[in-house]
């Protein structure tokens, strides 16, 4: 058992557990510590320097994401000096970002860079820098890549490596020419990339975005988020369903999902919109004169009940058979077996696990 220790953050005494970072303790305590290169699923990286804090007894501010909490530490997170440094850092990040409309902010919700710009009330005017004009790879169906907006936090590279264990993308070049690329700098479709899309959801800017989520006509704040479970294989990854006016528009991973811990694959991430398919069945159908014809629920229920009763009474309970789905929710399969056993009076029920 880890022992509980105490430290001081912004004048308040707080407890922490061994192994926690100052950033984690400070955020739990409610202090505002901005970050850009931090993602709770990733190892601390310490490249953006935004999470700097003052440590009593040290001459220089330290990055709190890489600083392990120690008993007796006295930390200040919000002094004027720290805020000035952070504000300047945000301005410098902004200076390399294009001034045009960020599609991610417009359609999905404010990206982390622009959120911080609002927080610190700064813009890209003061250090107006050159834009890197990196390549725009648009050949895949899912990932919007616009590296003009890249701020070199490498969260995408690290997610690909640490969370998905794929290592399909890496950092290339040095200085102004640095960037994110696949092996041999080809397109994603020609690389080891599995298009799982997890780089999108860690990216703190509009450099990476979900092509399915942008241009849906949504406004930030209107999107509803509902926790659920992926409908594909038997892994059971936790997903957040994003819906707008009762319609599904996207999926994001649940960061603390017990099975996936914030990882998803290409199907779980992008394979949700079959539910919006034009060819969904919308009415009960009964075959009349050889054609499947739309009817009311009442007519469908009466007709089915009468047919099944006559099968049971004329041919016996074993003349009926029910097959439950291995994809639909369990309440449905429970009901189908109860129906078979308690209404049709047999055990003639199975599910699709045999093929």
């Amino acid at each position, binding site marked *: 058992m880890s022992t509980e220790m105490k430290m001081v953050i912004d004048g308040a005494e707080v407890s922490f557990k061994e192994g926690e970072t100052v950033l984690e303790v400070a955020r739990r305590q409610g202090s505002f510590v901005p970050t850009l290169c931090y993602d709770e699923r990733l190892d601390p990286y310490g490249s953006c320097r935004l999470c700097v804090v003052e440590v009593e007894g040290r001459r220089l501010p330290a990055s709190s994401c890489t600083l392990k909490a120690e008993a007796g530490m006295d930390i200040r997170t919000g002094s004027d000096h720290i805020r000035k440094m952070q504000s300047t850092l945000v301005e410098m990040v902004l200076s390399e970002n294009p001034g045009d409309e960020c599609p991610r902010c417009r359609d999905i919700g404010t990206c982390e860079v622009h959120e911080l710009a609002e927080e610190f009330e700064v813009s890209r005017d003061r250090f107006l820098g050159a834009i890197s004009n990196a390549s725009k790879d648009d050949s895949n169906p899912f990932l919007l890549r616009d590296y003009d907006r890249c701020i070199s936090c490498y969260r995408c590279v690290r997610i690909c490596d640490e969370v998905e264990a794929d290592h399909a993308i890496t950092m290339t070049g040095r200085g102004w020419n640095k960037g994110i690329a696949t092996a041999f700098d080809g397109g994603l479709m020609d690389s080891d990339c599995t298009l799982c899309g997890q780089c999108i959801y860690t990216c703190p800017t509009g450099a990476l975005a979900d092509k399915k989520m942008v241009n849906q006509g949504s406004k930030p704040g209107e999107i509803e988020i509902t926790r659920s479970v992926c409908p594909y*294989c038997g892994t059971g990854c936790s997903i957040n369903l994003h819906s707008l006016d009762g319609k599904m528009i996207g999926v994001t991973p649940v960061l603390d999902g017990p099975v996936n811990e914030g990882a998803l694959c*290409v199907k779980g991430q992008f394979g949700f919109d079959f539910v919006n398919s034009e060819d969904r069945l919308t009415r009960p159908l009964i075959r009349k004169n050889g054609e499947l014809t739309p009817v009311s629920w009442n007519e469908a229920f009466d007709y089915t009940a009468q047919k099944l009763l006559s099968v049971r009474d004329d041919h016996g309970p074993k003349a*009926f*058979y029910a097959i439950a789905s291995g994809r639909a929710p*369990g309440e449905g399969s429970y009901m189908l077996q109860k129906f078979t056993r308690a209404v049709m009076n047999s055990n003639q029920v199975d599910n699709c696990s045999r*093929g």
Partner: protein
Amino acid sequence: MSNSIPEIEDADMMLCVGTNMTECHPIIAVRVKKAVRKGAKLYVVDPRKIPLTEYATGHLPLKLGSDVALFNAMAKVIIDEGLADMEYIEERTEGFEELKKHLEPFTAEYGEEISGVPAQLIRECAIAYASAGSAGIYYTLGITEHICGVSNVQSLCNLALITGNLGKRSAGVNPLRGQNNIQGAGDTGALPNNYPGFQSVDDPVCQEKFEKAWGVPMDPHKGITKIAALDHAVDGRIKAMWICGENTLVTDPDVKHTTKALESLDFLVVQDMFLTDTAKLADVVFPAAAFTEVDGFFTNSDRRVQRIRKAANPPGDAMPDWWIIAHVAKRMTNDVHFDYENSEQVFDELASLSPIYAGLSYDRIERGDLAWPVPEMDHPGTPILHEGEFLNGKGKLQLLNYVPPSENPDEEYPFYLTTGRRLPTYHSNTMTGRSGGFRILVPNEWLEIHPADAEKLGLEDGDWSKITSRRGEVITRVAITKTSPRGTVFMSFAFPEEVMTNIVTNPEVDPQTETPEFKVAAVSIVRVEAPTGLGASEALRANPDVEDPHLG
């Protein structure tokens, strides 16, 4: 699974058998890859050089269906090398002396003769498995979809039992379920031999329990399996079927037989989200709501019961599955309770009747932290099964013999065909095929064939071929790849509208589970001219943005 998914990361050794994990269970594969990074050994047993082999310490490319010969040989190596866990065997298993005697002829050399895996590699893998602190076995349908599926599983259980790898962390025998709620469907009693919670239908105590709960007499006899039911439909013993959310026509082996079975019925009800090929044969079609449109639960591979929630509105009159069935039931009986206001009431009834779910409620499955059995409301769940003792006392070691596949290559049908999924196409593609972008990733079906076989047949990449088995034929494009070994070809069944792969697959079944041998069929292959008017090519021509690597 005997163990939970997160534990995989801390295994010392992983034996992955008949599981193309990076394509079929990518997020479980993440755990395997992470374990490898931490220093674990990984051995992949699969006829094909699947992507997981890139991470493996060793790849055992066994001949299709030779699993029992291979794992018996491994068990013998373990015993001969003195690596068996005698304390565990003594305390927790029975039949070890019989097993030891039974395994005498199963030398590594015999294993090599039957499976084609070099004896030295069999020894290496066996020693790595038995010497590891915790070794986990992970398998999928590559083990079960054989006429000897049960023996295959038991041969893996023998390995776990003689090394003490059942009932401890990061070990176990772990089938990865292929669909989101296939575990849940079985848990809820959608099985011909079990009530909810795997309570036996031929046990009078269980019968009485359900008679009391539902207020009507229970049939004391087991039902038949779905596979047998299709036969009974053909011979007229079954007159009516209700199929929920399964595209039986496309996903069962031997499509001609399945079509005949469904067409023989007097009355077919299909409940689905789409007018599938199966639904097109129905007399009544019920429109089902999608998983995003209902409240409910899915139970995953590691027995984790998880809540799903309504986030969107169903189209038109589509309704939740349970609601539809309950309404038909209410019109057929007044004796049984079918008045439910919501899905939670259904779940609570299930939990009240199923000891393994007894400690669960919608509140308790909020985050998906609990794996069954959860017998009481304050029970923390059971991520690891068989800790301390087995349910039925001692683990019985099984004496197993190798049985060859029901079909093997001969002059007329000289190739093995095996089937499976590809990463971006799920099952019969009813979901991925309707989700934007996936058709760009995989626009059509193709036959994977080894370069040496292709050369012999005069096939080039992108050519068209006709694949014929004793049941029928299909035409598809060809991709030349070393993923499949010489003599074995691979197809998925994701494009039924163009290439109905299950026309050629093998309907022979395991006698105990009646699971068909999807993984082995003998086929012949010939080059044919490109057919005209195929759906995929039309789609590709209509959409020039879609690049097809196999058009040549």
